[in-house]
């Protein structure tokens, strides 16, 4: 019996020739990522269990990226970033992206690939559920809690159960107004928020092959919204070229065998996919944009690890070019690199940033910002009963702030087109 890409990566990391779904195995991690929300607790567990003077298992293996609560007056949030600073100093860690100096980057999941920490064939554990994003580059990447992360920090190992794989094959050419976000919202809508619990979600087919690296990241980012343990896409030349442009480190590419075993296989024709949204309060509450055109909105939000990358803003810029928004519209680039690109890249001779400014958008510096609510002074946080259309990934009650607010998940095209009207709107490209 052949193996899936997920099984192959896990087998190699466990030093085994083969593994099967359900096996409990100890794997060696390549990278452990943490941020300001879970980093201090992880360090706390690490010190409690291994001792005050313990050293991390591999300095090069640890990446710390404060990104969640970095623009707030809340003292505890500042204290938490200080805990990371202190630890970095103490352990002499090379990869720390400190918001207070020139290493400042922004959202962890967009930073990791930009800085060459996302590499095919490797194992990444992150104290963040959207760590599944990095499977887009053919690695095994999954979210863990502080206790497991403290364990990895000290040992470089973790006990995990090999997940069953589910395959999603998407073939054909997407319409101009249909994006990766529409694909994943459709899939989650079809299988439900627990449709892939503890499974690897593998994405393949000609449509996926045509997608850019960033669009593939958008798909894998939301695997967790269907309960997936990881999302994964086999690396191809695009992946290899991208990773080589970011790092000199060697890496290995795996792909699923022809006779690999899947618990189910879903097929989609790209031509049948339409712009969709997820209505409050669940990522699987799928609605067709075309059926919701009179739904009134108060805010549009374009940002986060799901929808705050360069191409997400390229889509928004195309829609907002020479137009004005009708509702509060937030533009929050995921990282400093994305922000710089928005100033440089142009649509019809005008930089994306200038397009957003003249459209009347509110532009804020890179961070997770209101994607997960956060302290009350967080940029873009919904503090009242706002109805917000957003390129983020979750719309649970209170996700973007107050319990009275509502979040509608959408693609950057739909979020931008809706900003122009104040109603759910199809970008009709």
């Amino acid at each position, binding site marked *: 019996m052949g193996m899936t890409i997920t099984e192959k990566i896990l087998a190699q990391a466990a030093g085994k020739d083969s593994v099967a779904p359900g096996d409990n195995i100890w794997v060696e991690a390549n990278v452990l990522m943490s941020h300001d929300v*879970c980093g201090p*607790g992880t360090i706390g567990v690490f010190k409690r269990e291994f001792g005050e003077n313990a050293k991390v298992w591999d300095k090069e293996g640890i990446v710390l990226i404060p990104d969640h609560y970095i623009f707030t007056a809340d003292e505890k949030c500042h204290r938490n970033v200080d805990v990371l600073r202190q630890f970095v100093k103490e352990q002499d860690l090379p990869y720390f992206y400190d918001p207070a100096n020139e290493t400042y980057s922004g959202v962890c999941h967009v930073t990791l690939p930009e800085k060459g920490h996302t590499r095919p064939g490797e194992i990444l554990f992150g*104290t963040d*559920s959207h760590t599944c994003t990095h499977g887009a580059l053919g690695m095994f990447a999954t979210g863990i809690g502080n206790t497991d992360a403290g364990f990895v920090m000290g040992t470089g190992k973790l006990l995990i159960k090999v997940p069953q794989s589910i395959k999603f094959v998407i073939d054909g050419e997407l319409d101009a107004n249909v994006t990766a976000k529409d694909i994943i919202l459709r899939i989650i809508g079809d299988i439900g*928020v627990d449709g892939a619990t503890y499974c690897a979600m593998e994405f393949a087919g000609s449509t996926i092959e045509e997608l850019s690296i960033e669009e593939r990241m958008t798909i894998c980012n939301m695997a967790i919204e269907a309960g997936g343990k990881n999302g994964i896409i086999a690396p191809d030349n695009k992946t290899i070229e991208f990773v080589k442009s970011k790092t000199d480190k060697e890496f290995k590419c795996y792909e699923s065998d022809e006779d690999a075993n899947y618990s189910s296989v879903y097929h989609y024709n790209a031509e049948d996919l339409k712009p969709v949204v997820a209505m409050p309060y669940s990522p699987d509450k799928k609605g067709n944009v075309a059926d919701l055109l009179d739904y009134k909105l108060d805010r549009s939000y374009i940002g986060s690890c799901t929808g705050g990358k360069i191409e997400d803003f390229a889509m928004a810029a195309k829609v907002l070019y020479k137009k004005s928004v009708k509702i509060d519209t937030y533009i929050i680039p995921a990282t400093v690199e994305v922000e710089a690109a928005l100033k440089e890249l142009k649509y019809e001779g005008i930089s994306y940033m200038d397009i957003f400014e003249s459209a009347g958008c509110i532009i804020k510096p890179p961070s997770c910002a209101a994607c997960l*609510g956060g302290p*009350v002074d967080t940029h873009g946080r919904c503090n009242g009963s706002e109805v917000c259309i957003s390129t983020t990934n979750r719309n649970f009650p209170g996700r973007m702030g107050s319990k009275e607010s509502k979040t509608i998940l959408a693609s950057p095209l739909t979020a931008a087109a809706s900003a122009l009207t104040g109603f759910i709107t199809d970008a009709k490209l």
Partner: protein
Amino acid sequence: MSNTIKGKVFITGDNIDTDQIIPAQYLNLVPTISEEYEKLGSYALCGLPDEYETRYVDEGKMKTEYPIIIGGTNFGCGSSREHAPISLGAAGCKAVIANSFARIFFRNCIATGEVYPVEVNDSLNQMVKTGDEVEIDLDNKTIKLANCDKIINLNDLGAVQEVIEAGGIFEYARKSGMI
């Protein structure tokens, strides 16, 4: 030591996500600092919508009256924040009974040893109401409901049972000679 968990239950629905268990604005609290651990407990389940008439932890209190939470499917979906099982544990929750759990939450329950995740097939959240008493017998893997003779069987937790019995991932690794 008797291996039972007994007490009043708090009933929730399907898909209780980690933002409802502990809203993101409280994630500035660090669970390994003891006052902040206690504080996390006072906010446990405060993100539930207003339709829930009973609060899990009363306003101004640090602990709950309900050591057992009963949910439906996909309990604990959403983020990897360990603050979620920790806030429940800090509030005095001993066990969560659900038809299914989201995997990171389940894993975090086990790794931390904060709350016992119990899986059942029966829709217990339809059979009892908030405030009723139930008793979970971990040795015999059954649940007894007050005012009802029906015995509910717990689903087998599989290999992970060993980690729970050891008291979490660190103890398990020590026992098996990993660290």
